[in-house]
């Protein structure tokens, strides 16, 4: 597959190797993050006029889901301020690692937790309370502060970025969808890595930290867990790390067999469907149920939410995969029939996980479509909040009095339709490829994606 090595450009390469450009962005992001926390606590409790809500859940979310994830994969993780303080404390330095770094516990995360399940749970928890988190500044601030302190705390106890890798509710889905992004960090020549002594890209050196994401770049084949932090570019003594431009969806050609990642895809798909119904729909009773946390109605909403994302959606997909006829066409033409017969006995769990690859582009485009409606509807609040971020009557940039009005409202429905239909085509194409790996027919998966798309279209339009 064609790749364009961006790091061949001396300008890009030096910008990535040099710590200062990233550091400047980190500091600015950290400042914005801290300000968002403060704004949530002391600013107006009216979410639409508070910096914490407007800049986190409208501006940041729009950038993340409409630009960063689809085009840069884990590009956001490369500048995310949440783990950066923990990183500095862990390394004992802001710039190059300190040879006399602090004596933190530096434990290895137990093997049981070295997967995406904790991220699935943390995302689900945030999702269950999202009606309150997304609208109440002080709750947003509590969540942001909790993430910051958790990231710092885990950096003191565990090695590398344990929070980002195993707990962050956002990191999980970014990793999942980063597989579709047209950008990747990979090694140039595997033989160089094999011969490399000390593996400084993973273990660190005086030039930089070992991979904070606990990934050995030499074995990197997918974007899922590479945080694009660029430490390996700085530490590689052989200049063997490249950042490439590549076709969209490249990683999906190598489907994952991990159940945690498959469930992440269904959680994201289900959350988009439920949000479209609850947040965009006109059913006031459901909105109230989602908002009145810990009320009997909320418990009903929570049960329905959990049933859909952990039961109905993966359950129906499981049935579709389990009772799908085996795709014999794959094996008839092969010479090693005995080996292929063994491969035919791919467990249903593996088939399920592999086939669920098609849900990844579908889910991403569901989120794009869902986000388009509320981001464009509420974008006008950004300018007002920029001038009066705390709701104290300031007018810093003369935009405080800008009245709310939807932006490009006539384009929302066509753009959403395009995104959803594009997602369906993308998912169908992915299903055809992953069906070969799963040794099943792609038809039930495509039908599943079609039904889900029609449902989302009905909910949004």
């Amino acid at each position, binding site marked *: 597959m064609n790749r364009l090595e961006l790091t061949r450009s001396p300008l890009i390469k030096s910008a990535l190797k040099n710590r200062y450009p990233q550091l400047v962005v980190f500091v600015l992001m950290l400042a914005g993050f801290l300000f968002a926390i403060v704004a949530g606590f002391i600013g107006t409790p009216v979410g639409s*006029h508070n910096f914490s809500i407007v800049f986190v859940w409208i501006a940041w979310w729009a950038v993340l889901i409409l630009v960063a994830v689809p085009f840069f994969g884990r590009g956001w993780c490369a500048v995310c301020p949440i783990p950066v303080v923990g990183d500095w404390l862990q390394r004992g330095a802001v710039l190059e690692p300190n040879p006399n770094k602090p004596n933190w516990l530096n434990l290895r995360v137990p093997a049981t937790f070295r997967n995406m399940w904790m991220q699935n749970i943390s995302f689900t928890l945030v999702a269950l309370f999202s009606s309150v988190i997304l609208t109440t500044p002080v709750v947003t601030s509590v969540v942001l502060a909790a993430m910051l302190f958790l990231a710092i705390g885990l950096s003191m106890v565990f090695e590398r970025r344990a929070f980002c890798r195993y707990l962050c509710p956002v990191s999980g889905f970014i990793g999942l969808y980063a597989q579709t992004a047209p950008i990747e960090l990979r090694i140039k020549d595997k033989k160089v890595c094999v011969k490399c002594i000390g593996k400084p890209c993973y273990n660190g050196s005086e030039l930089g930290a070992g991979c904070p994401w606990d990934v050995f770049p030499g074995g990197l084949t997918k974007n899922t867990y590479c945080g694009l932090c660029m430490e390996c570019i700085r530490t590689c003594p052989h200049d063997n790390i490249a950042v490439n431009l590549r076709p969209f969806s490249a990683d999906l050609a190598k489907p994952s067999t991990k159940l945690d990642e498959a469930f992440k895809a269904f959680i994201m798909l289900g959350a988009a469907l439920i949000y479209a119904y609850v947040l965009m729909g006109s059913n006031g009773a459901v909105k109230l149920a989602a908002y009145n946390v810990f009320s009997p109605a909320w418990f009903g909403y929570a049960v329905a939410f959990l049933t859909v994302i952990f039961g109905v959606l993966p359950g129906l997909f499981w049935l579709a995969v389990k009772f799908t006829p085996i795709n014999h066409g794959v094996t008839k033409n092969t010479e090693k029939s005995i080996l292929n017969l063994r491969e035919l006995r791919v467990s249903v769990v593996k088939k399920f996980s592999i086939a669920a690859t098609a849900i990844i582009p579908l889910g991403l485009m569901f989120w794009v479509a869902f986000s388009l409606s509320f981001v464009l509807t509420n974008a006008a609040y950004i300018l007002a909040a920029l001038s009066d971020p705390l709701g104290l009557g300031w007018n810093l940039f003369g935009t405080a009095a800008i009245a709310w009005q939807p932006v490009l409202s006539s384009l929302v429905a066509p753009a959403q339709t395009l995104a959803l239909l594009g997602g369906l085509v993308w998912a169908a194409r992915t299903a055809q490829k992953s069906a070969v790996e799963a040794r099943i027919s792609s038809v039930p998966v495509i039908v599943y994606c079609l039904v889900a798309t029609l449902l989302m279209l009905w909910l949004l339009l």
Partner: protein
Amino acid sequence: MKRSELLTRIIIMVFSLGVVALPLALWAQTPLIHASMAESGGWSPDVIRAKVGEPLHLKFTSDDVMHGFAVGQMDLTPVDIEPGKVSETTLTFDKPGIYTFFCTRWCGLNHWRMRGTIEVTGETDSSAPASPPLYVTLGLNLDAPHPADVVPVAKPSALHGQELAARIPDLPIYQSTDYYRTHSPSQVFQDLSTSGLTDSQRWDVVAAIWQSNTTSEGLVEGKKLFAQNCAACHGETGGGNGVFADDLSAAGEASAQTMSGAQDMIMQTPANFSDPKRMLGASPALLQGKILRGGMGTGMPMWGSIFTDGQIWNVITYLYSFQFDYSK
């Protein structure tokens, strides 16, 4: 430690502390009066202090829905308070005292309880003693029912009453303000029993007497005040069926218990001013008392600190218009 490392750490520390400390400092220097629905606390602060003759500059913001600010018994255009935005007004008081400020928007079920006080201190020119309201002078029991013994079959016509009034020898007495305010329509109806008029004619005369104590300007102001302040519960047509009536009834005690200082209050169905038995048995003095003091133990708030005397009498004249036909 390398110099670059030290410098970077200092910059990050200063920047991070600044981004936290600066908004905190600016926030602390911007005192705002927060308006939120009564169930969420109402005004904060709800007591403001001022001095006679010194301008009092107030900044408001709403923490939830649209509210409004006005000061009782003061000629002030209400200030709208939008959620998340800041509104301002400047007040100057020429007399010391405790003024009541209140919400002018129907913001929620307990909107009527969204009140605060401005304590104005300073020298005063006049120290006229306050006279007790009429219902106190008359010793009226505001909480006892005062139903009319008889009610008219049809809505009495003031126009017909005016034609018949010439036959009443003591008409000037009946038409006097003192008599009007201290008697209920049904009492006047009884007093006219020796007039030789039929029941229907007597009721028409009562309507004419009530109209004679009513001006068209007063009726207009009474209607406006009623629409702004009373109709939410009592209904546009006084039928006790305003937009909040069902909610008040349904909320019952639970609603009232959310308000501090009103633990024993029980919400009741708002009074029906279109009910002749209730209205024709009530004297203007009784209605004045109800409005001034509010309905103790019910959801009816007190308006004595909000309306002027003249405004209260105008509201009362409008309330009687639900019973009498004043058309010319």
